[in-house]
Every structure is written in structure tokens, then in C-alpha cells.
């Protein structure tokens, strides 16, 4: 099979990969992108951060100040606008607040438009939390937990749960939340829901906002349409792992790729061979592709971009076959892995690391699983080989960081290709 040729191949279509593609196209390069799996961006719940929000929240508590939205790079902000999925908080203003299923109102730098931003409600707002017979939506418990959140108390919010008929069929109590969200892609269904919510508001007398589960559309965020119809803000709480927010990201990604004429290959890349003149990618299907440079945006351990694969695996009845690093990238490529500022060199166990000491975060320190990644300088891993997003060792695992790093990678690629 004759290999096709292209300027840049991007592996991975999460926040980092999509941002890289967008920025490369803006810079006039031809791009091909591969993604064969499900990444962190598709699993996340709809809040987006620049830095981990907890750190900001803790600092703000210590200093007794209100956390304010910090600047997002101009190009990153343009990318977010181009993707069209999220709303960013205004720079310098109070940060958006979204409701989490763990019962908190957390700060976020931005959020999926379907999510209700509680920071935009007036003090003392009365927020309705309708009961819907679904496993993830114990409205009574959630309303109780949210009412007790520090922010809700400070703002004097009142969260009340009440009966409501918001699903049409009995079976909708059992389907996955993402499937319920998909039902709301239908305009008629959204209007029906809006009508039910109007009835609810009329019955309740006073309602300043409606907080629902992560069900409002799988391809488009339908919260805005509902807000218009009902006349008070309607929005979702964050969802559990792998819910509607991820589907909406994938839909927004398709729309963006279509607009900028990038084709997404739903394929796993097995290897990237590099020589002086080019990179050659080999895919799962056996297809190959030549490019002048490759950007690894394959994500971290959570996405399967970095695989924990200690030598003790695959040993069958025998002892492990030799000492090697317990992590590898999902595709064969000349990279060095690192974590917490140290590279993995020759190991000292034939089996694997003592993860009970390192895997989970303790206090401020991230655990090994969160920080392991490719060692690189800026976005550059080697000649023709670049990295962006969670795959980079020790980079904070956030959406906006990933997107910014994609833009940095695009610049680095451009510089390298021009330099030759």
C-alpha cells in the first residue's frame, strides 16, 4: 500500500489534539488526525479549568478572597470560541460556579453551555431541583447537600426539591444518562420538557433557576433554548464520568473539523517511525501515513495514551521477561517517560512499582498516575516529534492547559518545518 503524505499528523483528538489541529490549519499547514479511543476530554463532566480549581479554592479560602477568573491566552480563548461548546468566565470577574454530583458548587474557569452557572444568580435565589426517577439523581439528597455548600450559604441560595414529570416513558428511568441526553436532541422533546418546566415554575410560585441532571442534549446544549422558553435560567449539574458533556464535546469537535476541513480517522495508531526526512505512522488497520512531523496528543493514563504495563503482565507461568519501565505510550515512538521531575531509566524491580506508595495523590502532591508522561522541552520531544496535552509529564491535567499546549505545539511544529 502506497503511503499518503501530509504536513502534520496529530495523534489523539481530545482538547489538546483538536486545538493543535485548529492552530495548525490557522497556520496554513495540512493536517490529518487519528483517534481510536475515548479520552479524558470525552469523559469529563463539563467544567473546564486553567489550573486545578481546588488549588485556587484553597488559596482563596486561606487569603479570604473571592477567586477571580485569570486571563486565558488570546489564542486559547479564540479556540474555545471556535469549538463553540463552552462559556468562559469573564476575565477578572468572579469565577463561574457549577454544581457537582458530590454536592458542591465548585468554581470553574469555564463550562459547557448546558451547565447552570450559579455565580450568575442573584443572592437569595431559589433554585428548583426537580425529582426525576433516575439512579444518578436523588434530588432530595442533592438539594440537601448543595444547600449546605459554603458558597450556597454565603449567597443565601435556597435549593428545593419537588415532584415533577420530566420523563415520558418508564424506561427512561433506567437508560444511561447520555441516552436520556440524546433524547433531548429532538426539538419537539425539548419543547415538551420546557412546557413541563413552565408548569413546575407556575406551581412553585417562585423559581429563580432550574437545576437538572446531565440530560440536556447530546449533540447540542439545549439549556439555552429551555432558558428562553421557561424564562428563568435552566441548566445541568455536572455529570458522572462519561456522560452527556463528553458527547457534546465530540459533536462540537466534528462540527469544528468539518468547518476547517480536517478529517478525523477513527483509528488507533500503533507506531511512529522517524527518520531524518519524515515520520511514518502505522495504524491498527495496517494503513500507513507519511508526514513531515507528528504531534502526540494521546492523553495520559486516564485516556490510555500512557499505559501502565508492568513487566509482570504477560509473563504467563514464568517470571517476568526482564526489567523495563512500568509505563509505555499507547503507540511505539522514541520517547522517554518521566514523572514528578524524574525520568524512568533502568528500573530496580522485575515486577513493577509499589503503587500503594505512589499511585494516589496525597495532599498537594499528585500521584504517579496523574503526572506520568512524556519528557519534553516545551512541546518538542525530538526532531519531528512533538507533544501536547495530558501526555506531557507533570503538566496540570486541565482542559485549558491541554488546549493551550496544543497551540504551543502548533507553533513549535511550524518553527521546525520552516527551519528546514
Amino acid at each position: 500500500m502506497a503511503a499518503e503524505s501530509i504536513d502534520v499528523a496529530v495523534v489523539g483528538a481530545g482538547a489538546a489534539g483538536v486545538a493543535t489541529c485548529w492552530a495548525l490549519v490557522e497556520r496554513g499547514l495540512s493536517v490529518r488526525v487519528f483517534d481510536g479511543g475515548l479520552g479524558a476530554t470525552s469523559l469529563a463532566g463539563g467544567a473546564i479549568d486553567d489550573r486545578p480549581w481546588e488549588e485556587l479554592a484553597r488559596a482563596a479560602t486561606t487569603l479570604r478572597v473571592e477567586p477571580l477568573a485569570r486571563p486565558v491566552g488570546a489564542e486559547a480563548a479564540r479556540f474555545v470560541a471556535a469549538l463553540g461548546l463552552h462559556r468562559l468566565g469573564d476575565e477578572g470577574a468572579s469565577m463561574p460556579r457549577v454544581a457537582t454530583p458530590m454536592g458542591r458548587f465548585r468554581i470553574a474557569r469555564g463550562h459547557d453551555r448546558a451547565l447552570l452557572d450559579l455565580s450568575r444568580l442573584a443572592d437569595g435565589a431559589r433554585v428548583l431541583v426537580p425529582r426525576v426517577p433516575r439512579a444518578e439523581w436523588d434530588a432530595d439528597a442533592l438539594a440537601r447537600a448543595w444547600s449546605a455548600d459554603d458558597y450556597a450559604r454565603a449567597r443565601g441560595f435556597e435549593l428545593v426539591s419537588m415532584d415533577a414529570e420530566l420523563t415520558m416513558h418508564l424506561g427512561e428511568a433506567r437508560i444511561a444518562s447520555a441516552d436520556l441526553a440524546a433524547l433531548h436532541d429532538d426539538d419537539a422533546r425539548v419543547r415538551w420538557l420546557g412546557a413541563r418546566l413552565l408548569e413546575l415554575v407556575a406551581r412553585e410560585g417562585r423559581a429563580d433557576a432550574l437545576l437538572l441532571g446531565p440530560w440536556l442534549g447530546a449533540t447540542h446544549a439545549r439549556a439555552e433554548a429551555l432558558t428562553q422558553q421557561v424564562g428563568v435560567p435552566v441548566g445541568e449539574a455536572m455529570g458522572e464520568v462519561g456522560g452527556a458533556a463528553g458527547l457534546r464535546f465530540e459533536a462540537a469537535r466534528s462540527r469544528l473539523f468539518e468547518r476547517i476541513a480536517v478529517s478525523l480517522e477513527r483509528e488507533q495508531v500503533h507506531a511512529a517511525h522517524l527518520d531524518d526526512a519524515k515520520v511514518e505512522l502505522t495504524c491498527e488497520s495496517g494503513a500507513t501515513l507519511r508526514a513531515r512531523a507528528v504531534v502526540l496528543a494521546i492523553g495520559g493514563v486516564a485516556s490510555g495514551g500512557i499505559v501502565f504495563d508492568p513487566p509482570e503482565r504477560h509473563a504467563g507461568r514464568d517470571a517476568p521477561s526482564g526489567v523495563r519501565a512500568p509505563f509505555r505510550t499507547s503507540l511505539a515512538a522514541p520517547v522517554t517517560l518521566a514523572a514528578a521531575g524524574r525520568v524512568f531509566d533502568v528500573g530496580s524491580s522485575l515486577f513493577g512499582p509499589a503503587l500503594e506508595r505512589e499511585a494516589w495523590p496525597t495532599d498537594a502532591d499528585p500521584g504517579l498516575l496523574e503526572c506520568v508522561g512524556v519528557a519534553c522541552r516545551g512541546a518538542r520531544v525530538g526532531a519531528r516529534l512533538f507533544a501536547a496535552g495530558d501526555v506531557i509529564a507533570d503538566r496540570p491535567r486541565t482542559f485549558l492547559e491541554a488546549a493551550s499546549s496544543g497551540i504551543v505545539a502548533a507553533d513549535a511544529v511550524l518553527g521546525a518545518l520552516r527551519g528546514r
Partner: protein
Amino acid sequence: MTSPGEPVPRVSGRLASASAAETCDVDLVVIGGGVNGTGVARDATLRGLRVALFERNDLAFGASGNSSGMIHGGPRYLSADPEVTYTSCKDSGHIQSIAPHLLFRIPFLLPVPQAKRRIFPLMDAFFEAYDRYQPLKRGKPHARLTGEELVQLEPGLRGELYGGITFDEWGIDGGRLCVANAVDAHEEGARLFVGSTVEAIEHEGGVVRAVRYRDRGTGVGGRITTPRVVNATGAWAPLTASLGQLPPVHARVRPGKGIHVVFDRRLSNYAIMSETIDGRTIFIEPWQNVSVIGTTDDDYYGDLDDVVATSEEVRYLVEGVARVFPAVREARIIGTFAGVRPTLYEYGKLEDALSREHAIVEHAATDGVTGLYSMLGGKLASYRLFAEEMVDLLMRDRLGRPGAPSTTHLRALPGGDRELDALRFARDHGIDAIAARRLVYRHGARAERIGERMKRRASEARTVCVCEPVLEAEVRHVVEHEFARTVDDVARRTRLGLGACGGMRCAARCGAIVAEGRGHAPEVAAMDSLRFLTQKARTRVCALGPIEARQEAIAIASLRSQAGIPTRSRLAVVGEWAAGNTAVVNAAVGNSAAAASVSVDERGAQDGG
């Protein structure tokens, strides 16, 4: 329900016998909520004693909830002391008739490698002898298999196999067994102090007078007078003895730490025996809806309240089983659990007891303290018998002659009185058949009480934990009737949150239900569930493979995203928060901002009194 801080109301003695002890609050204090402690509490209560039981952590927190979960007939003793095998099998049979719902058959395969072909006939003869005891526990006789038959039955087996032997054992959920005993004792009048540690055993002039205790949640202490104390604290026994100013060696056990590795499903049809590199016998067994590898046995010198498996121990077991069943290497591990055996001490002291599994120390004889006894050793399989022996002795010492005989082998444990058809139950309540089957396994006929809850409030039929699965009604039931106070306690009773997702999807919701049931503030729920999640993570990360590591990374990201990773200092005060006493918390953490920002209600912790 009284809170442990209040004086215990006097209950008029139900026994006619007149003794000085009548003026005590209770006739018997049992320390320890494992099988032995709950077994004694039940037996003694049924024989008319007024009993108080103290458990420092949770029912089945120790060895009883972390064992291999088998009530085996003790083939190990067959050659040295067949009497032990006989009593073990017989008592295994008794447990079966009083709690049939809790038992499940575990057929074992003993593969015999080519290298051991010469002793095959010997093994065969050995199990032939064991067959004679099998009917006592409704076990099937053994079978001899060729190498080929062996692989047909268990295609995952590898190695040069000459043949094999099957034999029959029974599995049981140790946690459920403890709870069943405790609930029965409580319903018959025993008072339970779960979450209260005994701090001192008071004696005066060589006679036991009282114990002092403290609720570990609220920090509130109390005293209860009693003429008798049974120390049934397993591996903690020597520590407990020291609370009575006795030399710990007089209740000495050899603490043997054992760990188990849990897989996400049943990997084999049979339990398979294997050998570790140092020649110890280990096994992989299908157990309830998972497979379990066990176990290690190492002298333990650490903290008994905080026993966790290490990656080294996990590897030791996986290597051992992989020799005959290599598929374990690729299979998905969802967790580990660990406990410490209270093995009878080996040096000198109790030689005669060594051929037995358990012994009672009468501290009247060893230390001149009348009314204090220590139960050492024991097995799930023989807990009932051990408890019976203990109470026989108590009755004799009390009355000077044998008292009423034990009825614990005749009286069904809660839920064991009759069979309930799970499928019918599922239909009647419109719930999933698997959920119904699991519910009936855990609660027997008492699942009906949980069913009634769902009839009263349809919303309680919602699933809280999808993996196990566990319904809301069951969570509420165990909080109201089985002394569960935290998410972890609920997990011990229902296996909630112990599946592949590690509680990510259910801990918060369960925490909310528990807090509501116990009248705690929502922030108590949040911290309780966070504590559960991070604690359980500790038991998983020592055994990660590729898929598990990815799952774990997602769990961390999701926790970060939704709640924030709790810091150690925050978690340290959770216990106090969970109990709901602001004053104590503030004192404990020096009135820090974290504690002060939380207002927790002032209720005491639950006791069954």
C-alpha cells in the same frame, strides 16, 4: 435507643438466680464484634443473660470480615486429630441449618503435578477418609480425575498435570454472619455499642466490677458495671488484656496477617489449590460474584486498626497461582483485603491447645481475676461451638452447675428461618433479578422487610450501587437495623462500592443516605464518602494492572473534578465530624478553621441500647 453517654437503664434480671451480681448493669460484657464476640453475645442472651457488647470499629471489622470466607471442615487436622475434623464438619453443618441463605457451595480442585504422581494414591486415600465426615455438612464425596478430565473441568489450568482431586467446601460471608448474630442478640435484649472502644476493665479484690468505654465518634465516655467480661477481640486480645492491667502475654496470640486479592468476576468454575514458591498452599476461589486469591500468613507487628495489603504480598500470591492458572495475570483485580489471624501462640504456653483451633483463658486461674475470660483463636467454621463452650463455662461459674443448654444450633439466625424465592421477589417488587438474588443472599427471608420498605416508598427501589448491585432500601435498612454508621459500614454489610468502579458512582449517594438516616448534616456525608473513596483506593492501588491503572486515573480525575482531593488533615477529622460533635472536634484539631466552619449536630452515635 440510648446514647452511650447516658447511664444504662437497669433492666430487671430475667434469671431467678440471686447473686451479688444482680446489682450490676449487665450480667456480661463482651468485648469485640467479630464472630466470636457476636456469637457469645447471642448465645448468652438466648440463655437469659443481660449482655452488652462493645465493638471498637465496626462489626466484622477484624479477621471475621476479612477471612477467606470458608467454613471448611478442617481436613488439615484429619491425620493429627480427627476429632477436630469431626467437630468442624458437624458445626459447619449446624451453621448451614441456622443460616442456609448465607452459604454457597465451593467445590475445590486439587491439581496433582506429574512430579507428585507417586503420592496421588495417598492423597486419594486421605480424601476418602475426609468423605466420611462430608455428610455432616452436606458435602459431596471427593472424585479422582485424570489430567485430561482436570483440564476439561477447568480449561485455564496449565502445567504438567498428572491428575487431580475434587472435594467439597462451603463459602460464607463473614461480615453478614457477624451482623446476623449481633442483630439476633440485640433483638433478644442485648445492648450493642458499635463504634465504642473499651478503655479499661476494672476489677477489685480479684473480681471484675465494670468496664469503662468511650464512643470513638463523639468522644463521650461511660462506665457499665458487670461481674463478667469476655475478651473476644481476636488479634487485639493481648491489648485488651492489658486494659485490665493484666500482662498481655496472658492472652497472647500470634498475629498472622493474611491478605486476599479480589477479581472482578468468577474466573474459574472451581476453587483451585496451588502452591507458593515457599511451598505454602494457596487457592483461587469463586466467591459470591467474584474470584478471590488467598492467602498469606505473616507475623504482624503493625497497627491492627489499619491493616492493608502491599504490592509485594499481592505479587507473591499472583505468582503462586499463575503457576497453575496463568490467566490471573491478565485478569482484572478490583481490590484487596487484609486481616490478622489470632492464631494460638506457639511457644510453650499452650502446647496442649495447639492441636486445637481455639482456647479459653480463665484469668481467674492465670491472673487471679475472677469473671474475666479471653477467647483465643477460632474459625468462622467453629465460632458457634466456641461461643457455646464459652457460655457453658460462664453459666457453670455463675451457677456452680451447668445452666440452660445452648440453643444456637437450633434457632435460625435472622433471615435463616425460611427460604425466599428471589425471582418471585424480583417480580413482586419490580426490581432486577440479580439485585433480588444478591439481596436474598444477604438477608434471607428478611429481604421481605426490605421489600416492604420499597412498597411503602417506591423511590427506595432505586439502585445506589450498580456493581453489586445495592438498592436504596437496603442501605436504609442496614443503617436502621444493622448498626451501620458510615459508608464503609454499609459496604461491609452489602458490598456496596467494592466492585469495579471502586465506589466512584455510589459513595456520595450512599453517604447522603447514611447521613440522613442518622440525622447528620450533609457535609458529614460528603466527608464520609470521600474518606471511603480514598480508603478503598488504598486497598486497590497495591494491585494495579493496565486497565485498573486507567480506571484509577479516571477515578482520581473525577474526584478532583467533583469534590477536590481531600487532604490528610481534612480526612483526619472526618471521623469526628461523622460522629457529629463539634465540641470534641474543635478540641481535637485546636479549633482550626476547617472544623469551625462546619456546624454539626450534637447527637450521639447510635447504639442499640
